[in-house]
Every structure is written in C-alpha cells, then in structure tokens.
C-alpha cells in the first residue's frame, strides 16, 4: 500500500518534472523578454505599428504567471520586464494624474512598440544579410594566388587578438606568481655592517642610530623599518666586536652609538 503511494508519487513528480523541463527548454528558446514580447505580438496579427501594447502587456504577464505556477525559474530580466509592464498597464488603464511625474503611459507604450519594431527590423535585416551571395559559398576568390619568385620579404604579423591576449597574460601573471621575498625593500645585515663599519670610525660623540640609515631607505615605511632593524643588529655586532658603545636613556628613547676608543 505504502509502496504503491510512494511509487505513484514518484511517477507524478517525474511527469511533473518532465513537463516543467519541457517548459524550461521552451523559455530557454527565447532570446530574452523582448523576444517573448515579439513572439506574443504575432498573435495579434496586426502591423507592429498598430499593436495593442495593453493587450501585449497582459499576455506577457500571463506568460510570467504561467511560468511561476509551473515553478519555472525565470531569469531576472524577465521579471524586471514583468514589473515594468505591470506599471505600464496601470498607467494605461488609470486616467492620467496631472500631478504625477514621469512619462505618460502612451509614451512608454510607444517606446515599447518602437523597441519591438526595431528588433523585428534587425531580425529581418540579419536574414537578408545572411541570404546574400557570400564569399566562399556563392562567390569565389582566386584559387591560385600567384607567387612570383623574386623578392623574398619576411613580414611579421600579429593579430589584435594576439596583442590583447599577450597583454591579458601579462596582467594576470602576477596573480599567480609563486610567493617570493621582494628583495628590493630588504636592507641586509651585511649591507648594514659594511656601512656602519665605515661610518662609525668618525663617530667620536654619541650619535643617534637613525642617522646611520641609508638615505634611499628613508622614504617609505617598510624599507625604513628593514634598514632600522638591520642597522640595529649591525650595531650590536660591532658592540660584540668591541668597536662601539651603545646606550638608550629610557624605553623608546633614541638608541645612540659612539666609537670605542
């Protein structure tokens, strides 16, 4: 018994799903809301210029409603169009309010009719274009472009696509660069030692450690910090070697160096 029910349910849901899928496919067959409107407008069997936009709006809203009852997920632009048409419908049905801002229902309807007519015209133009005599199908170019054996010139070519792809490749490459230390902003202990050894010989009086930092590392934060750390480490090394004395009056006060006589 239970099994039967369960089976029955499965069957209906499968059938439901298939029906729904058929409709999804159908909706997918449309190239957007304007395409749906254009298709619906054909049922009116009149010139697009004489079309009843009100009737069309109702048909479209019915289409969206049907999709909703069948639980078809419509893309956002279909729903935006539905909202716009509902608004248009209200404008067309209610007597115009002179206080109200914005375009009249007639203006909006006229624009929609224009859009439909323009899309229809472009479709027809596209069909005419594709029906023309086409190179390689109806009309043919020279089959043996002649090569005359005299000048042999190497010409380098590249297409715009090549150019853009090259640029895109360059601009995205950094995003995938394996992590590496950026050596440029690092002031090494070796460099600091070398510099301090040379300079400290002249420092007979107590001198702020900061004065020993190389000028080119003073400009921005990370580089200055790197230089400060390296120079401080180098000064400790020189203290250990017995070549300088080091002092700091209190916490966070400047660190000072003096040559050891």
């Amino acid at each position: 018994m239970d099994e039967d029910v369960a089976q029955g349910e499965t069957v209906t849901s499968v059938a439901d799903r298939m029906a729904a899928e058929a409709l999804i496919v159908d909706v997918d067959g449309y190239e957007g809301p304007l395409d749906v409107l254009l298709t619906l407008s054909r049922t009116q069997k009149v010139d697009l210029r004489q079309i009843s936009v009100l009737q069309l709006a109702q048909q479209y809203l019915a289409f969206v409603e049907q999709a909703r009852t069948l639980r078809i997920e419509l893309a956002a632009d279909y729903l935006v169009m539905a909202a716009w048409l509902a608004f248009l419908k209200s404008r067309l049905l209610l007597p115009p309010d002179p206080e109200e801002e914005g375009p009249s229902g007639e203006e909006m309807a006229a624009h929609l009719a224009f859009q439909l007519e323009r899309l229809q015209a472009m479709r027809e133009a596209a069909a005419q274009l594709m029906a023309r005599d086409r190179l390689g199908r109806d009309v043919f170019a020279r089959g043996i472009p002649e090569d005359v054996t005299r000048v042999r010139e190497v010409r380098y070519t590249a297409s715009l696509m090549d150019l853009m792809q090259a640029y895109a490749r360059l601009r995205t490459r950094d995003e995938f660069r394996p992590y590496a230390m950026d050596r440029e902003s690092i002031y090494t202990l070796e460099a600091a030692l070398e510099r301090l050894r040379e300079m400290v010989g002249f420092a007979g009086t107590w001198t702020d450690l900061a004065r020993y930092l190389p000028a080119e590392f003073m400009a921005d934060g990370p580089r200055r910090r790197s230089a400060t750390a390296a120079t401080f480490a180098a000064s400790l090394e020189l203290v250990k070697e017995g070549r300088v004395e080091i002092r700091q009056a209190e916490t966070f006060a400047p660190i000072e160096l003096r040559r050891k006589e």
Partner: protein
Amino acid sequence: MAEDRDDDTPLFEAPPIAEQERMCEAMLFASATPLTVAEMAARMPRGCDPAEALMHLRRRYAGRGVHLVRVGDAWAMRTAPDLGFLMQEERVETRKLSRAAIETLAIIAYHQPITRAEIEEIRGVSVSRGTVDQLLDLDWIRFGRRKMTPGRPVTFVVTQEFLDHFGLESARDLPGLKELRAAGLLESRPAPGPGAENRDNDEQEEGAAPGQSELFED
C-alpha cells in the same frame, strides 16, 4: 609632344591607360584579397592612375564569369554569383553562426559604431562574450573609436572582410538601410521613464575601466 607640361610632370611618361588596365588586371587576378588603389599605385610605374584603369576594367568584366568588385576602399576579382554551383569543390564550410551572433552582427552593421550596451538595448538581452569573440575571430567586426560618453566605452564596427564576405561595396549598401533609416529604426531613442536611468547606469558600468582610461590620458 608635351608642350604644356608643368613642373609636376614626372620624368617619364606614364604607360598608356590600356597598359595600366592590364597591370591592374594582373595584380587583382593574382591576389586572393582585395587591393586598395594606393597598394596598386605603389607597385605600378610612376604616374599611373589605377583608379581610372579600374573603371575601364570593371566595364570589361561586366557580365563575364569573373567580376571586378569594390570592397570598401579596395578592389577584388570575384566569380559571378550565378556560377557558384560550379564551385562545389572550392566551397568552404563556415561555422554555423548562432542566432545571437547573426543578430549581433546585423545590429553592429546597421548601427555602427555601436557599444555593447547599445546592442543589448536593442536585443533586450545581454550579449555573451562568446558571441562577440566569434565575430572578432571571423574578422567581421573590430573595435572602433571609443564613445565620448561616461565610461568612454569601446565601440564595434564592421570590417573590410565583412564587406568582402557579404559582397557589399560599403556599409552604406546594406540591404534595406535607407528604408530602416527613413522609418527611424536606426535612431537611438532613449527609453522614457524610470527604466531610462537604469540603462544609463548599465552603460556606465559596462564601458568604464577607470584605471585604464587614466592610462591613456596624456
């Protein structure tokens, strides 16, 4: 012989026009792609006037199995369309274009230069990147001048290859162009009402690459 020559006259007399016609005929026959008047003139002896020679040549090939056709500002020899049935072996199978691609191509041809946002406005649906890619790949469209609107979006225009493929002398010869223009269907008409602002924003977002345009500022 040349009493009233002025100073601009070249040292040597240009070949007779019949001879120039032969030269154009030979060059155009040998080339599978269209040649411009300037390209032909560069290869011909000095003082030649390929433009005039081409007029003669065109008349000579009228009604023949091969025609002289104009493609933008270039010229090419092409077989007469009514004889296409003889060329089964030469036929090249072209990739089938999607409906979206065909429509997008027509919209670009009839409205050029046109931005992506404007194409979307006409089709009422977004243009997938594959569509534009395919048309660029076929060399049927290229990038045109940027539009002087906010965001300075790039535009698309059709190419000489497009004209050559569809047998058009110029984009002005597109079928039905005059009628479409007379009917006002090629004008860009802004949508009235609240929808309008949204569209504008879209366009801005579409074309804007602020960092990039700064790069191009001098």
